[in-house]
């Protein structure tokens, strides 16, 4: 808990993230090479889906990350609403475009996988529709952030919308069990273990870790940017206030957490 409290301090976060970023990005790059080597040169074609199974190595991690970043935003929303933690709002805002991008990748690759396998790019079934709804929720959240100028007010409104939208996450996960769908059921995270052959499973897991580390690196950069944006806003407001006071100098402005 002490570590989390220390990490949640913006100044400490800036210092720690600065040191971690090159390592996370570098490790992600190495794992991408290993994962894609496994996906294209080691893993066999599927006995039913043939070579189109290669799409799985980007489609599945994208789907996981789209749901992961929304869950992260939900936890941050609770942190922002309950504990009023400034870094929770920052983490929440920085996560939205990243989660939206992975939802978009999931939908695009799913459509390109669906055409040769199902004979159609799109069908309004539960899994595909709920993933589209997730993308729309992400876009609504990003729009709401831009609609309200004051970051704390925007954070509160976005947190409530995020919490309401979280209902869609279990719907995505269990849609293949609750309704008849063209989409295959869960084949990795199952009670009885994965149904994928190990020769296909290991490249999938390596690609998933590579994508995850890359997304975390982007999230850290986006969080650092948001901290700077808030410091710029504070400095600008203080400078404007000071300019209105006679005889005051802008050099008296408070210093914030950014580097």
């Amino acid at each position, binding site marked *: 808990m002490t570590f989390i409290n220390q990490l949640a301090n913006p100044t400490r976060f800036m210092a720690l993230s600065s040191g971690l970023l090159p390592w996370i990005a570098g490790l992600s790059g190495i794992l991408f090479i290993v994962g894609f080597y496994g996906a294209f040169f080691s893993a066999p074609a599927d006995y039913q889906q043939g070579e*189109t199974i290669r*799409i799985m190595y980007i489609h599945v991690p994208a789907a996981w990350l789209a749901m992961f970043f929304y869950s992260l935003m939900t936890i941050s929303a609770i942190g922002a609403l309950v504990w009023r933690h400034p870094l929770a709002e920052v983490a929440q805002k920085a996560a939205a475009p990243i989660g939206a991008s992975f939802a978009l990748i999931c939908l695009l690759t799913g459509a390109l996988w669906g055409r040769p396998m199902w004979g159609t790019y799109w069908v309004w079934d539960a899994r595909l529709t709920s993933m589209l709804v997730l993308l729309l929720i992400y876009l609504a959240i990003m729009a709401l952030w831009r609609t309200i100028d004051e970051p704390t007010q925007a954070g509160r409104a976005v947190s409530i919308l995020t919490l309401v939208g979280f209902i869609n996450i279990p719907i995505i996960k269990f849609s293949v069990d609750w309704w008849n769908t063209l989409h295959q059921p869960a084949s990795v995270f199952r009670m009885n273990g994965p149904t994928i052959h190990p020769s296909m499973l290991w490249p999938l897991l390596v690609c998933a870790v590579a994508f995850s580390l890359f997304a975390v690196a982007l999230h850290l950069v986006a969080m650092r*940017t948001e901290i700077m944006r808030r410091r710029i806003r504070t400095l600008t407001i203080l400078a404007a206030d000071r300019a209105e006071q006679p005889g005051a100098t802008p050099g008296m402005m408070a210093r914030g957490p950014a580097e």
Partner: protein
Amino acid sequence: MTALGPHAFFIIGSYLATFAVIAALTIWIIADNRARKRELARLDHRQHGADRP
């Protein structure tokens, strides 16, 4: 390199679409970061400039 068969268009298209989205996101995030860094440096510089007698 494994032969991608008759569905190569869909496989390559998937990877290209993924690359395009990831590249756009990365460029946007890094460009935004650099712009805010420059803006902050300019504000700090102005503040320090005003501090000097």
